[in-house]
């Protein structure tokens, strides 16, 4: 494991932002960190990067405790936490030089990371002339500067247009293929499913589930099924009355039902008995379905 977080707990006043959270991030993985707003994702990431001290618990990076030996632990880490904020009155190159001095990184690395993030031509421009997307790319550039083994990205696609998002996604793919472990927090479940090998979901500061995406989708009790019927509205109203059906909605004219797997036949039976014609049943569990179902269950609990 490149990162182990053990029993992290952090409170702000009476509110517990993170509650007994443990995570293990395998070497070489692309690890998605999911949760609704205010679930404790940012606090967890800030604990992992020594910006916030936990009340209880410890984070180890390559066996070095962030809390006890922060400098050594952070020498393997590159991170972009939320927005990329730089000294606006200085150029991108000067900003990166300042950070390189702190890392002990050779200045020759600066042009490489600027080129890699598509900012090579604007390196000498002041950051205040940059768009939000360019600042975000500069944020990723600074994270890559010290050749990190672990890259922590907190909402890296925030403020980016679709093209920018794709660039980041491609970059994450490239970095992962080079063996860099990537821990990425995002609201964009589709993006996460495309690029991540593992995920962890948290809600109200507590871990809901974690593991390989394929394992989680395969082992999930929840199955999202597309059911092609002739009367979608009637079918939706009918199925919404059953408590064991977690979610039921219509998307692009197709009924989508989230339910426990062994109850598919029961659903079909109900529909047929109510004179609704069923023409196809297609299992289609996505990460979004898994996420929404888990969050729904957690809310009910």
């Amino acid at each position, binding site marked *: 494991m490149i990162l182990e977080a053990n029993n992290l707990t952090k409170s702000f006043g009476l509110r517990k932002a993170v509650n007994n959270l443990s995570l293990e991030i395998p070497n070489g993985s692309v690890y998605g960190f999911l949760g609704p707003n205010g679930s404790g994702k940012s606090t967890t990431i*800030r604990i992992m*990067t*020594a910006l*916030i001290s936990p009340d209880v618990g410890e984070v180890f990076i390559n066996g070095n405790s962030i809390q006890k030996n922060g400098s050594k632990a952070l020498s393997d880490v590159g*991170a972009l936490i939320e927005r990329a904020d*730089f000294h*606006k009155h200085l150029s991108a190159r000067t900003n990166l030089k*300042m950070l390189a001095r702190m*890392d002990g990184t050779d200045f020759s690395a600066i042009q490489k990371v600027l080129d890699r993030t598509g900012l090579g031509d604007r390196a000498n421009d002041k950051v205040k002339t940059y768009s939000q997307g360019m600042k975000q790319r500069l944020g990723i550039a600074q994270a890559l500067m010290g050749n990190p083994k672990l890259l922590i990205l907190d909402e890296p696609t925030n403020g980016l247009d679709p093209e920018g998002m794709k660039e980041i996604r491609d970059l994450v793919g490239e970095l992962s293929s080079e063996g860099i472990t990537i821990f990425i927090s995002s609201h964009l479940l589709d993006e996460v499913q495309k690029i991540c090998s593992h995920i962890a979901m948290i809600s109200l500061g507590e871990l809901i589930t974690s593991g390989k995406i394929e394992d989680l989708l395969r082992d999930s009790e929840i199955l999202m099924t597309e059911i092609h019927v002739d009367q979608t509205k009637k079918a939706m109203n009918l199925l919404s009355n059953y408590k064991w059906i977690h979610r039921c909605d219509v998307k692009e004219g197709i009924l989508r039902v989230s339910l426990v797997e062994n109850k598919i036949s029961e659903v079909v039976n109900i529909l047929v008995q109510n004179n609704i014609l069923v023409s196809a049943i297609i299992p289609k569990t996505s990460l979004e379905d898994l996420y929404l179902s888990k969050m729904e269950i957690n809310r009910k609990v």
Partner: protein
Amino acid sequence: MLSLIHNELLVITGRWRSYIGFIGISILMPLILWGFAYGSESLQNDYARGFEGSFMIVGSIINAFLATYIIMNALWIHIPFLITLAAGDAVAADGSNGIFRLTLIRPVSRLKILLSKLLASYIYAAALVIFCAFWSLGIGSMVLGTGDLIVIDNGILILNETEAWLRMFLSFSLAIIVMCMVSTLCFMFSSMVNNGIGPIIGAMFLIIVGYIIIAIPLDFFRRIEPYVFVSYFNVWLDAFKDPIPWILIGKKLSVLITYSLLFFGISAFVFLNKDIKS
């Protein structure tokens, strides 16, 4: 550590606020020097009145040394404000601008980062005092010339030119130490908040309260005066006493340094335990 200080100096020199002090001095000093050069007759009369019965004055006693001595007497209350303009932002601005999210995640200890910021603000304070000296002594000696320095304190002290240069050097050196202490005070407030204005107001408030306490001759104020750090700010004046009261200067400096260490200790405690949430 040097590379960290280099970083901090880049930040300070990149902020327009850092130049307010230098611009202010550059506007004020030529005016004052012009005033000394062309309107010093009444000043010479006032100044010489104290010793005209004992000495016969030939020529002008107004020169760069006397001008500097008078300027320092007038400005030692105002220079701290200029110093706080840089020190107030030293830590707070990085918090409010989100820069800590880039710097505190790097393999450098927080204490080193904090110390580099403090030392950079010391360099700024020293630069401002030296700039003041450059104008009043450097440009002043070209405009007003040099000569003996006549100081009226508890008696009359006449220092020849060589001695006057040495005393001025000592005096400005002591002024730098005082201004570094002011920096540390403002720095302490800066490490507590995420807004550069609060520390400036906080530090100036304490300094002004100190000035009031030492200016009003009440018994209660006299009793607490030894504990008011502002009452040691005038240590630079001791450079113009004869003989130079080294023990007194040493005592005053040790009090100022002790306060500086206390303020930095508080800054370090706050900063090392600070959660970066913004």
